[in-house]
């Protein structure tokens, strides 16, 4: 598909879109003016697309320094009358939550959608928290799409709802919805103006040196609405509660909550199933495919919980099946409804053990779980036949080599890790006497042998905060690793904390000049912004020096001797030492390709240091000989410096 179709596409056009692409089309159709994010799987593609299309779509887009700032950008520009979109992965909302809680109090008159993608099964995340809990914590409405078409449609509806009630709206997706591709039918693009109250007040304020490509709003002052100091906040909370009661009337009659009838007219035990999001898809395919006589209530507008509508669905049932991923939230809501109504109907979900608590579902899990309920009644579902492989193939399958993600050939993190390990050896520091506190990024892959440079991990930026605690709490050496983007995101207060509170540790900023793990987005340390324009480049070295670090050195980690020497001095430093290991990520486009390396087999003594200690994917052992795959090798020459026999040399043509 040509991405430009997301801007140019007309009413009735159909495209095969990724959920994240449908998000962008939804934003464009709704007339969004401002979009902000910090990249995180599984939402990263949304930002990547905005960074290409924002100008053509009349949208201001930024990669914010972190999710909290993105939330603030969205909230305040919405307070200025604009439709705004903030999007992030589930754990991003933890970072943004402080301002999010207040934005629900102040309201968002222009309209704001907060799209949050949860990650059941944690494909690229540190936990599987459930964003629907935040909706309850903050008092914020939630829509849950099941596929790309619904994402687009709910984006549009989300802005209607948000503007009508002046409240942020969460769109909760999961990986399987954000990364599902399906046919999406377009509608026309809104030509609606900014929120009426803030319109037409801008004429006398043309302060931009050149006209910008997006609409501007106007912030109309109102302390009672926008300043939650104690005397205002109480009133705001009361208003919010009243708002949510009104919105509950909307959710109770919403078309997003619909019943799929499956011929539930027999005179046996009457079961009904309730599901939303991705879980609905699995449940639907099982009930439809297995011809089960069981109606499904699909919930799309899930908070404020549509109590009346759900009560209507369940009141004549003999059993209620709840299919939801991550936490048993709908299940608890239903138990409350049954309690209030004095109904005694069994509820089959996670709480009573019918469905598994952790990890994402699929049709097989849902079928097996429903089987347990139907078995109570003596009926068994016809399950698909297992395929029996013969002994040889079973053996082969059970002993397949793992294929785990690894640091790329030519990745500078590998050189840094090798360097710090060698410095430890030369200083006689035992592995157990040095703690590696790591952070969120490609470099977390250092957890694997032979590097094993990840001993402790909490969250974005925490490697430095954790180092403060280890410094206060132990006498061990401490080396923390944090990426450049992650340093900006959440490492700066921690660094200042470390210096001010006189802790002692070594911080390594792995400055690979991009946000690597999520696919190469810019960050404040680069001279380019989210829309591809020039931007001031913020120096990590200057931040460290301004934070009164006495040891700040920038190195090229690929020069091993220097790397080892710098770590040795840093580990002796009494205080916070900052090493900035600066070398561009090998995946950055347009980098000059260097000549690959090769092994002089006459000199190689098969010591395998390059294999055992460096573990570069380009180097392997074939027929008892160490070889370098010239297609994989990036010519970084770190292996040349590792080889004591000088057996590794540049490949001649």
């Amino acid at each position, binding site marked *: *598909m*040509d991405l430009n179709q997301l801007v140019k596409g007309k009413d009735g056009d159909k495209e*095969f879109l*990724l959920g994240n692409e449908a998000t962008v089309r939804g934003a464009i159709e709704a007339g969004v003016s401002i979009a902000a994010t910090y990249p995180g*799987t*599984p939402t*990263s593609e949304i930002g990547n697309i905005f960074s290409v299309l924002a100008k053509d779509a009349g949208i201001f887009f930024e990669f914010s320094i972190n999710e909290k700032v993105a939330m603030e950008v969205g909230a305040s520009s919405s307070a200025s009358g604009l439709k705004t979109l903030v999007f992030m992965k589930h754990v991003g909302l933890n970072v943004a939550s402080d301002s999010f809680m207040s934005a629900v109090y102040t309201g968002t008159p222009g309209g704001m959608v907060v799209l949050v993608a949860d990650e059941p099964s944690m*494909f*690229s995340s540190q936990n599987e928290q459930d964003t629907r809990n935040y909706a309850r914590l903050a008092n914020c409405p939630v829509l849950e799409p*099941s*596929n790309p078409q619904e994402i687009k449609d709910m984006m549009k509806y989300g802005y209607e709802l948000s503007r009508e009630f002046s409240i942020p709206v969460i769109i909760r997706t999961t990986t*399987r919805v954000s*990364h*599902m*591709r*399906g*046919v999406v039918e377009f509608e026309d693009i809104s030509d609606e103006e900014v929120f009426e109250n803030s319109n037409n007040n801008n004429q006398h304020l043309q302060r931009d040196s050149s006209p910008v490509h997006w609409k501007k709003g106007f912030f109309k002052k109102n302390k009672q609405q926008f300043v939650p100091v104690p005397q205002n906040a109480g009133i705001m909370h009361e208003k919010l509660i009243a708002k949510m009661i009104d919105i509950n009337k909307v959710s109770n009659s919403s078309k997003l909550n619909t019943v799929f009838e499956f011929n539930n007219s027999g005179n046996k035990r009457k079961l009904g199933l309730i599901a939303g999001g991705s879980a*609905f*898809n*699995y449940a*639907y*395919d099982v009930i*439809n*495919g*297995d011809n089960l006589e069981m109606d499904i209530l699909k919930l799309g507008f899930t908070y404020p919980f549509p109590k009346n509508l759900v009560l209507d669905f369940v009141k004549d049932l003999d059993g209620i099946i709840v299919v939801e991923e991550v936490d048993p939230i709908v299940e608890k809501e239903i138990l409350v409804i049954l309690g209030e109504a004095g109904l005694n109907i069994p509820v089959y979900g996670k709480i009573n053990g019918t469905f598994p608590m952790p990890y994402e579902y*699929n*049709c*097989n899990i849902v079928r097996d779980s429903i089987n347990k309920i139907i078995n109570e009644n003596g009926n068994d579902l*016809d399950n*698909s*036949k*297992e*395929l029996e*492989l*013969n002994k*040889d*193939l079973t053996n*082969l*399958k059970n*002993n*397949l*080599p*793992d*294929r*785990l*993600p*690894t640091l*790329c050939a030519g990745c500078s993190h590998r050189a840094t890790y090798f360097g710090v390990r060698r410095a430890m050896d030369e200083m006689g520091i035992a592995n157990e006497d040095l703690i590696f506190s790591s952070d969120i990024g*490609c470099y977390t*892959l250092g957890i*694997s042998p032979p590097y094993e440079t990840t001993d402790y991990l909490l969250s974005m930026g925490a490697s430095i905060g954790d180092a403060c605690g280890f410094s206060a709490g132990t006498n061990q050496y401490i080396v923390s690793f944090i990426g450049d983007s992650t340093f900006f995101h959440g490492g700066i207060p921690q660094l200042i904390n470390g210096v001010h509170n006189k802790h002692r540790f070594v911080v390594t900023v792995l400055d690979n000049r991009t946000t690597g*793990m*999520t*696919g190469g987005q810019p960050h404040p340390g680069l001279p380019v912004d989210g829309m591809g324009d020039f931007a001031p480049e913020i120096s990590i070295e200057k931040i460290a020096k301004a934070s009164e670090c006495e040891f700040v050195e920038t190195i090229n980690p690929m020069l091993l001797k220097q790397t080892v020497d710098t770590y040795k001095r840093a580990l002796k430093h009494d205080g916070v030492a900052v090493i900035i290991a600066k070398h561009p990520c090998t995946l950055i486009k347009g980098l000059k390709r260097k000549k690959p390396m090769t092994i002089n087999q006459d000199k190689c003594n098969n010591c395998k240091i390059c*294999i*055992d200690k460096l*573990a*570069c*994917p380009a180097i*392997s052992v074939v027929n008892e000989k160490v070889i370098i795959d010239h297609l994989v090798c990036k010519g970084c020459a770190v292996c040349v410096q590792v080889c004591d026999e000088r057996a590794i040399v540049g490949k001649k043509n």
Partner: protein
Amino acid sequence: MLNKENSYNIYICGVGGQGIIKTSVIIGEAAMNEGYEVILSEIHGMSQRGGVVSTELKLGGYKSSVIEKNNADIILAFEPIEAVRALDKANEDTKIVFNTSPIIPSTLNQFNQNYPDVKEIVSNLNENFNFVYPVEAEKLAIEAGSLLALNMVLLGATVAHEGFPISKEAIIKAMKNNLNSKFHEMNLDAIEKGYNSVID
């Protein structure tokens, strides 16, 4: 077990960087243009650092994008051991199309593991399945002009199979809509080479 008319499940797997997602999008778009209800599941992120990548394409009015156990009509593996790793999706009638050139995992030495013999993989698969199609995709891609055309060779080989619901013409049209026009000729050649390797 879903027994639906027009249902066709395609499981595609291999190693990050082989063009698996692009290939899947091309098939999906072609299916859409031929009037099928189609959905595709992709996994991005961590898996792109040399890890396993898989996509699941489902035609025929499904809502869930994940193929059930033993329910793939065809498995297209870009790498031999990845074909074996995917066998939970297979039943005895599943067609197994795979590239015979291994990509050796870089962690083999760290974990003290061995890469199995490809001939052994082929003979084991043949003993268990009725439709096993090893494709020398690397060789054919280089003949077409570049190793980068590997995914189009495998796509061509997939389309050639009896029962594959989407026409070659629709696939070629979708390929042109998704790949740089500079390489259309090479990729077209690659599709044909893959196609003919099965038909001949």
